[in-house]
């Protein structure tokens, strides 16, 4: 437990310090940001670093082991509908709680994209669908290369028809979907899943699960852009 706390603290600080250092340097050299804004920045940075720390600590000590257990439980029922149902719900639930996704939604809202929770819902649904596809791919052993080529190929084709304001947010959505929470969670479930599949190993079969899941939000948001706007 002590080790986890220590590692998580180092990680939270490590992810934080370079950006803070660069911003502080910029403040003192090139720009003089108003002092209240700067003080708020320092207070907010401290808050965020504690936030990342508690969040990751909670994820690692409590939520991750549960994800692994669920993953290991899944194939034992020999039921594709169960895998699909759990993959969809798990993928969706985990992505809605990803800090990166919430952050993108916040910035979009600040910038005047009045979307309510549409962005979060589409990103999460996209992850859910392609994560489940990835799990099923593992069962049937379909080569990851072709699955990736097909999904990203679809994204490229859709990109030609999407209005510019959707294109930018769609590809950003793919990037934020794989964050500090979703990646370990989806991997935990994937690892549990492959560990009981007998002749499958996580190393050779589980790789690609995240990359595939990231295509989900991209395609989801592009579809939204092509067909609804």
């Amino acid at each position, binding site marked *: 437990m002590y080790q986890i706390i220590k590692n998580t603290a180092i990680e939270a600080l490590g992810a*934080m310090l370079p950006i803070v250092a660069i911003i502080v340097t910029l403040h003192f050299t090139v720009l003089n940001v108003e002092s209240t804004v700067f003080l708020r920045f320092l207070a907010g940075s401290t808050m965020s670093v504690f936030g990342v720390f*508690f969040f990751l600590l909670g994820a690692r*000590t409590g939520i991750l082991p549960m994800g692994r257990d669920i993953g290991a439980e899944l194939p034992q029922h020999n039921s594709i509908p169960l895998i699909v149902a759990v993959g969809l719900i798990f993928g969706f639930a985990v992505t*809605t709680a990803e800090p*990166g996704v919430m952050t993108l939604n916040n*910035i979009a809202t600040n910038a005047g994209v009045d979307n309510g929770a549409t962005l979060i819902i589409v990103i999460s649904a996209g992850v859910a669908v392609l994560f489940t596809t990835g799990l099923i791919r593992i069962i049937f052993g379909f080569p990851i290369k072709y699955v990736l080529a097909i999904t990203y190929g679809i994204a490229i084709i859709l990109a030609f028809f999407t209005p510019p304001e959707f294109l930018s*947010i769609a590809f950003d959505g793919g990037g934020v979907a794989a964050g500090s929470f979703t990646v370990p969670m989806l991997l935990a479930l994937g690892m549990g899943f492959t560990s009981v599949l007998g002749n499958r190993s996580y190393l050779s079969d589980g790789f690609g699960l995240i990359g595939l899941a990231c295509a989900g939000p991209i395609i989801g948001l592009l579809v939204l852009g092509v067909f609804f706007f």
Partner: protein
Amino acid sequence: MMLGIFEGLDNVTLDIILPIALLLIFFLVFQFLFLKRPLRQVLVLLRGLLFAFVGLVLFLQGINIAFVPMGQEIGSAFGGFDNTWTLIPLGFVLGFFITLAEPQVRVLSQTVEEASSGYIRSKTILILLCLAVATFTALAMARTVFGIPLHFVIIPGYLIAVILLFFADKDFVAMAFDSGSIATGPLTVAFMVSLTVGVSDALDGRNMIVDGFGLIGIITLAPIISIQLLSLIYAVKTARGEVSDDSGK
């Protein structure tokens, strides 16, 4: 508080209750139907969820009062400069150091070294990844500054990524796509996207949404393309190595 650091905290809390509740319900249903773990383990899970909840509230509140306004402030200041191109080297520096500090990048470098049976050193991969992300961040900044349509960057970029799929080694391919978002942690997203949004707000004739967003999508390409390329170089070198071995026989 004078600084208003708790402003909007109630909204942030409300936003987070829903996803956490969703996770909780999902786990509990699974627990009662299948897992049936002892109570102690369930309590550990609940404690984890509570920590995650507190962490998310602190994190997002911090982002809202610190990184988003600061990013926009710096962005509009740079956008107001005569030499807006200075953003491009700034992007390069930001991209480089953020990647260097990201713990996940070290794990990835190690994995690539192992996948190449030690042939490609993890230090080489680390520097390569940092340079790749730095270059792509600079590219993303250049796009915002010059108002280049994202289509011109995203479509060729992902096309290259997909074409490389057919030539690169299977293990490297999966690894490359998995690590696409390795350099875009939530803090990076908050600061950098706010920055480009600020820049496009300050520049004439730019649209905040069209030109401000898209940065993350571009940076995501950096590890995807560079790791696949690395695998090609590795493949060529191994092939050459085999040739020279055969000639030696």
